[in-house]
């Protein structure tokens, strides 16, 4: 894979001398008879292309295929030669398009048959071509500048394709010698120039073209070495379609192309819209797309010869009707741009339009054995069609250990959804390449990395490791604090979030603290808030250095954490109350009720297992060994009401039922918020406080609100 191989630069030299105005003597009927033509009209005389027209349209076709398959880095310099040379474009990438060349060719026009043949020569063009090959291209320049002291690794090679009408073999030799001499001269000049490079290797392809029906005066000659720098080959071909197929073969040879014929393409008939016939379309692409065939010797499956393009071989692949969807990630070992051989034929344009509309087609390889193998896929990306090579052999990665068997595989409460959200926020998008952006440290990809760094400064991986990310109330702050810079409004939102948390704490709202891995009830309510505040502080602290406003958010967190005295006071009282509750729970009768509840729960669990094969973890939660469900409070309340009844005898059905419902609910997070808002429960809670400490109108009033 050499970037600066011979095919980096191609100089086309087309003869524009008077004799090229001669007819190629192949007539084209353009006045075709149609069905609704009135009778008795004599068709107009057919037209005939000149040698020039043939040469130009074939070289344009060469360029079309080249530009389709190599939109960049393979450059053409088009030169026309008569009494002087006309250079139609430059090596600049911006000049590399058929439209550009067509416009320039139109300006040149056909050769003037009345010009003095003595003044005209192809030599002017050949000289210009050699000069042009010495000129440095954008890519060579760029590579030389980046390689600095190793700039000599950048080579300068090129090819000259000359379409002319030579007089004899001797004339051909004269042309070769002339090119050789010019290279030597130009190379001398190039030594002392920055914008010129010495030609290290040049391939001269001389194409002698002559009218149909004439005898050729020039013989074909395969590639031969004229000098260490120059090789030359001679092709003698009749104008018209012979020249076209010759150039088609050459473009394949010069740019390592190969041909694939897509067969069995179902296409609606124009006349019979409800039937479809099968068509074939031939495509050209880099030959690496056939690597598997070349290596395995499967290149010549039965009946794989091109019909009339004059090519030696084409690989036939069959259109496969079960189409693929775009969200499937195929294992694809190569993707190569294509160019249809017959670009504006109806089957070709049907296929290309189908693909350009965003659909993909899988292609099947007809095997000798008769087995079906899907080996390729045609798909367009942004208006360019690619032939994807799919891997169709056994994978060495088959049957790998599942990710659940490896490190971290036994952990079940990963924050998968949250990380999915994180990935969406960190999706990439293209930015225009602005000069000088690197200096400013604003390379988009670097910014993307920095964003990832900011977003992950505090990112617990599992649900049970975090409280704040399980709280809807923290979301506004959590999503803002990771930003590179905050606006005043952002700071305000963060502060509001913090105040809201303070409010929640005052109201003693329960928190989604995880109790996984802890025994007993889990932390107390004020302990829960302490954990939450700690976590929030950790999160905000990791960003405090980002800006002054980030610091202000941290200040706010720190300020709100330190409780006002009355709050502290209340806390203490709250703790006493909870102590009492703890004692209550150790009550023997209480545990008795627990046990009977557990039994019924076990029965239910067994039933459930049968019914829907619940995850094991779910069931284990209910066993005595497992930690208590997080939300104990509501149940405690219920129990507080019950003792009188309990003392009377065995647990009532109602108690068991309520307990069961409470436990079931407390296992689900969604239920959580609903229960928090349940006014009755809260009233009960504060009633209890009141009994113990007398009236506290301020707090109670708030709670009742």
């Amino acid at each position: 894979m050499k970037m600066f191989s011979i095919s980096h630069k191609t100089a086309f030299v087309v003869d524009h001398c008077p004799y090229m105005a001669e007819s190629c003597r192949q007539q084209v009927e353009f006045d075709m008879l149609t069905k609704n033509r009135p009778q008795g009209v004599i068709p107009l005389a057919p037209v005939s292309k000149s040698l020039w027209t043939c040469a130009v349209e074939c070289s344009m076709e060469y360029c079309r295929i080249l530009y389709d398959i190599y939109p960049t880095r393979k450059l053409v310099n088009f030169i026309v030669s008569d009494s002087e040379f006309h250079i139609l474009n430059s090596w600049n990438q911006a000049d590399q398009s058929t439209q550009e060349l067509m416009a320039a060719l139109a300006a040149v026009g056909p050769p003037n048959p009345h010009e003095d043949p003595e003044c005209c020569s192809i030599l002017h063009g050949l000289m210009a071509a050699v000069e042009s090959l010495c000129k440095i291209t954008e890519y060579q320049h760029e590579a030389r500048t980046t390689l600095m002291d190793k700039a000599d690794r950048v080579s300068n090679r090129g090819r000259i394709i000359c379409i002319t009408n030579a007089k004899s073999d001797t004339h051909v030799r004269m042309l070769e010698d002339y090119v050789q001499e010019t290279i030597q001269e130009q190379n001398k000049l190039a030594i002392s120039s920055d914008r010129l490079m010495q030609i290290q290797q040049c391939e001269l392809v001389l194409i002698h073209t002559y009218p149909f029906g004439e005898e050729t005066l020039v013989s074909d000659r395969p590639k031969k070495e004229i000098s260490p720098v120059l090789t030359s080959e001679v092709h003698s071909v009749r104008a018209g379609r012979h020249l076209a197929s010759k150039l088609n073969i050459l473009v394949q040879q010069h740019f390592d192309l190969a041909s694939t014929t897509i067969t069995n393409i179902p296409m609606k008939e124009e006349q019979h819209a409800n039937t479809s016939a099968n068509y074939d379309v031939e495509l050209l692409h880099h030959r690496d797309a056939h690597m598997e065939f070349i290596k395995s010797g499967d290149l010549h499956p039965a009946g794989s010869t091109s019909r009339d393009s004059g090519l030696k071989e084409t690989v036939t692949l069959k259109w496969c009707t079960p189409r693929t969807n775009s969200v499937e990630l195929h294992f694809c070992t190569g993707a190569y741009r294509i160019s249809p051989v017959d670009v504006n034929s109806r089957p070709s344009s049907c296929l290309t339009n189908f693909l350009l509309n965003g659909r993909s087609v899988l292609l099947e390889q007809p095997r000798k054995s008769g087995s079906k193998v899907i080996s390729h896929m045609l798909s367009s990306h942004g208006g360019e069609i690619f032939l994807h090579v799919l891997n169709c052999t056994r994978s060495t990665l088959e049957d790998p250990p599942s990710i659940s068997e490896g490190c971290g595989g036994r952990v079940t409460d990963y924050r998968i959804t949250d990380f999915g959200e994180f990935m969406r926020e960190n999706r990439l998008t293209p930015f225009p390449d602005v000069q000088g952006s690197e200096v400013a440290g604003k390379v988009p990809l670097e910014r993307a990395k920095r964003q990832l760094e900011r977003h992950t400064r505090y990112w617990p991986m599992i649900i049970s490791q975090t409280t704040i990310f399980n709280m809807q109330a923290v979301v506004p702050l959590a999503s803002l604090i990771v930003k590179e810079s905050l606006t005043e409004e952002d700071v305000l939102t963060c502060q509001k979030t913090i105040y809201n948390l303070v409010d929640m704490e005052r109201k003693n709202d329960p928190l989604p603290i995880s109790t996984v891995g802890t025994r007993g009830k889990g932390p107390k309510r004020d302990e829960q808030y302490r954990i939450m505040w700690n976590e929030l502080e950790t999160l905000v602290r990791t960003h405090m250095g980002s800006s002054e406003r980030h610091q202000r958010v941290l200040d706010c967190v720190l300020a709100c954490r330190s409780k006002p005295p009355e709050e502290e006071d209340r806390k203490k009282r709250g703790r006493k109350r909870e102590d009492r509750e703890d004692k209550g729970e150790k009550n023997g009768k209480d545990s008795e009720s627990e046990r009977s509840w557990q039994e019924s729960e076990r029965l239910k669990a067994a039933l459930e297992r049968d019914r829907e094969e619940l995850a094991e973890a779910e069931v284990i939660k209910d066993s005595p060994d497992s930690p208590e469900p997080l939300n104990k409070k509501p149940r405690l309340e219920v129990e507080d009401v019950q003792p009188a009844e309990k003392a009377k005898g065995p647990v009532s059905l109602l108690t068991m039922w309520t307990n069961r419902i409470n436990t079931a609910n407390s296992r689900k997070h969604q239920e959580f918020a609903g229960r928090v808002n349940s006014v009755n429960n809260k009233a009960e809670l504060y009633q209890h406080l009141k009994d113990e400490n007398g009236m506290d109108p301020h707090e109670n009033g708030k709670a009742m609100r």
Partner: protein
Amino acid sequence: MPTVVLMDVSLSMTRPVQLDGTEEFQRKNLAVHGLTMLFEHMATNYRLEFTALVAFSSLWELMVPFTRDYNTLQEALNNLEDYDKTCLEPALQGVSNIVQQEWGSTCPCQVVLVTDGSLGIGRGSLRHSLSTIKHRSEDKKFPLPFPFPAKLYIMCIANAEELQNSDTLDNLEQLLSLNGGEGQIFTVEGPLCLKNVQSLFGKLIDQAYTPFHAVLRCGNLSSDVQVFPRPEPVIMDEEVDPAPRTILTDLEIVGFIEIGDISSPPVLSRHLVLPIAVNKDVDEMGTGTTDETEEENSANQMAGKSPNFCVLLHGSLKVEGMVALVQLGPEWYGMLYSQADSKKKSNLMMSLFEPGPEPLPWLGKVSQLGPTSDAKENPYGEDDSKSPFPLQPKSKRSYAQNVTVWIKPSGLQTDVQKILRNARKLPEKTQTFYKELNRLRKAALAFGFWDLLKGVADLLERECTLLPDTAHPDAAFQLSHAAQQLKLASTGDSQYAAFDHNITPMLTDFSGSGSSDRDRM
């Protein structure tokens, strides 16, 4: 990268080795000892590698087809019998066939040839094969270079001194150069003994079978991982950039992209990314020690229970249908995604793109990809209905822009027919008529095909005379106007034959009476 062990079981392998005072060994025993060590290493540190065992003498035999079951390999190794002389060429051909049958011709392989360095005499010897290499017919080509990318490791159960007495090393080196220089020859240093053979195979293990460990990072989240198979160095352009590129051991995620947007990209290779628990002690002890297997296992069990970033990443990539773009080195990228096999097991997989700043044309330059939050508007739309991908190329391809090609007469005829069809439906089809006419005009001017312009002008004039009485009067006007313009263009007069000039419809007004105009015709 599957391995084929090609074991020499010719009679010369049974030559005894002089050892001081200990029991007598054959070279074969030493070779088996070395291979045992290799298999043990692979079973613990490289257990996803598929390995096949081929024994050869004048014939070859596939003893164990590709497997990850190293016990089977070991058993077969222990039960090898002794045969006649060494004929390497058919054995290499056999290896070539076995690999292609199993893995096709794109999968890179490693061939470990174990021999004593006596490569036969006369016909069938390596020397003979190499001397006739240039006089082969197509169907009897020397098996090297293999059709698949291959590394050839030649393990000589002989020391360099004894090999110097023959041309063995020259022949083996020639073999390597036939394989494109991919591989290495190892010889025993010092006298032949178990210890030195161990160090011989130790070198092979270091060279070819050390697991690739890396750290996968996403901002501050990270995980220690093993990348399997080991990513091999890549050479992009042997001329401009001849140094092979290797991937970094620090794999940094740079962002995320939807599967639909990355759209089945071509990749150089695929690798499993397996999270590992790094045991510091094992690291310091180096590889090749096998006593710690049990400890490692219990360590692995512990590791299973502590959260790992790879598992989180894998889960979310799978659920969201996204890939993570990962930087492998300077201007080298790859992607991480969830890959499920048929048995509903899934895994974190990494594919390597071709090195370079722009591996996928439809993503553009990777360095120009940035966070969506930097964009003025969310390029994915507020409801995720849009996507900034694929990137549109600067110029359209020929098949997307209605080019004119007249190489086949049918191409020209179709274009003329299109003009005629529209000409008959004037004035309704005025716009299309002129569009097609201008397309033909442009192409004819570029190709210097002025005769065609005249011809089509004649054609239009004739159409004009054939217009039925019911035709709209405008039709005649437009036809003769178009014909006249084409004729002018065909003179090459710069005023009329300019490429960028377009023939515009004649401005007519038939709101009033058009009959007088018609009489004038």
